[in-house]
């Protein structure tokens, strides 16, 4: 039976997640909102999109947390390699956003079908768009993630750290549930075109940020 202190720690993780939720929403919003709007309509489809996005985001969190904990570097890597990793993630995120904007336009000319749109070849198996976007968003180390990571790394084992992250993640994900309602928005040509254009613009911005980071400049860093 887990010691009482573990319950308090997981309670702390949940509260931290719930309080960080709005910040998570704001940092994921530029990727999530337009991509959700560009995809097909329907609450069920929106739920599938969101759960795929969040699940992949969770994997991204866990992967980075596990690697960082295993390396003993905790989450606070030295600035230079961290900037490099962030730069690569931002550039990849920009690429995936652009590719997804293109793919969803081709896939959803009449209707999107029942499957979530894959990036890459439309007819053949490709990587699920929301999965790729969610995974890369999870890797991009938004501030709540960093705070949770620092706290999780203080725990006595990798398993405890990962569990802490999982509970924290559940806390943040509660705030994403209302986004399912975006599935109710009628997908006219106007809505999907606006969403795709917005994705392209945001992708260009992330590309710029990523390239700046690769050149050693953290435009929005502490």
């Amino acid at each position, binding site marked *: 039976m887990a010691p009482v202190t573990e319950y308090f720690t997981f309670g702390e993780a949940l509260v931290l997640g719930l309080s960080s939720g709005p910040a998570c929403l704001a940092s994921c919003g530029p990727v999530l909102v337009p991509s959700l709007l560009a995809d097909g309509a329907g609450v069920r489809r929106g739920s599938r999109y969101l759960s795929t996005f969040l699940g992949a985001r969770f994997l991204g969190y866990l992967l980075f947390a596990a690697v960082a904990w295993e390396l003993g570097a905790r989450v606070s890597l030295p600035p230079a390699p961290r900037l490099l990793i962030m730069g690569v993630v931002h550039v990849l995120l920009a690429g995936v956003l652009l590719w997804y904007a293109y793919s969803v336009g081709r896939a959803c000319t009449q209707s999107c079908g029942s499957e979530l749109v894959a990036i890459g070849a439309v007819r053949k198996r490709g990587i699920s768009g929301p999965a790729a976007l969610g995974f890369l968003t999870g890797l991009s180390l938004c501030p709540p993630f960093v705070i949770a990571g620092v706290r999780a790394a203080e725990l006595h084992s990798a398993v405890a750290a990962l569990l802490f992250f999982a509970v924290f993640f559940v806390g943040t994900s509660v705030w994403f549930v209302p986004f399912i309602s975006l599935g109710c928005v009628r997908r006219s040509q106007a809505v999907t075109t606006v969403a795709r*254009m917005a994705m392209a*613009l945001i992708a260009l911005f992330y590309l710029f940020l990523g390239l*700046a980071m690769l050149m050693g400049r953290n435009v929005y860093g502490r």
Partner: protein
Amino acid sequence: MAAEARILPHREIAPRSIGRSVLLTLPIVLWSLLIFSSSFRQPNRSAQIAGIMTAVFMIALFFMMMRTWSTYRWRRWFFVALGLLFPVGFIHTVMVMRGSMGIPMEEMIAGRTPFCFMPIPLLILPAALTRTVVFPGSILPGGGMSRSGIAAMMGVWLAITLVIGKGWCSYACFFGGIEEGVASLPKKAKLRKIDPRWRYGPWAVLLAMVLLSLALFEPAYCMWLCPFKAVSEYVAARNTVGLVQNGIFVALFAGLVVVLPWLTKKRTQCAFFCPFGAFQSIFNKTSVFDVKIDRTRCSPCVLCQNACPTMSLTAESIAQGETLMSCMKCGACVDACPKHAAVWHIKGTEVAVKPERARLMLLYAAWGMAVMFGGTIIAEGLAAILHVFV
């Protein structure tokens, strides 16, 4: 090939009598005297002369609108003057107060960055969630370039929007006149085929900028994408990133405000990019004035569609007898229509029954705002020029 649109009354109508035109212009004469009375009493000679010139200019334009039954070309004179003279007055004031168009950090910390209407839609979410205005200005008058403060600009914006909705983009925006002027210079458009999906651009920019402003907690459009930073002010570049930002502003201004309007004879920045314009489109739903197409008279010859500077008329919308949400109430389509099919309209009334009454009521409201807001800005710009000579 689509027929070129002449933005002139195509129909052969005798001008309105001078007497009636003067009578209809009288309210605007009184209004202009009221609005500019303070400049008449200024000790500064250049401000006095500028005030008088501007009042006469606005009255003359309105008189011509009455005499010739047309709106667009006279309104365009005002709008181009506003677009040209705002940067003159603004840059003059900035150079006198700061010696540079770049905003130094000191000014931002002191809350003396002047508040422009463009970031209004971007500030809503951060303000709603954290009660914070993410703009380096002052809520109330803060001195220096902050003028009357953020609250005052919000007050002006709300008041004018309540009166004329998206007519802001034709009668109040002090940036749109630049591209409208450029677009009017060539006789023919060199680029005629424009993918209609570009009309969704402003909404995409609005969505992206709202989301990024919330994520970054700053007015993202002002920091990265506003073309009009090139003719007003911008954050002083302290490093490479700052230089890149300023480069983006200049490139967007050159492309969207000069080159594309020249090539297309459209207000391309307004039609394909401006997020504030997309935001203002929402207020077209609340505005009582609009433009309708009388389908019993419509040919369709698509002259109105070609004349529209923002592509707010499509074959589908014309078939339904209306403009799109992006209509700025500039009057180009009404003036271009040879059959009196495109008409001014008051919501709830019958289409094409007494359209001149609708036009008059709109113009009294819109021109009143133009004199009050745009006219004041024109006078300031004129005063800055006259100050050199007087």
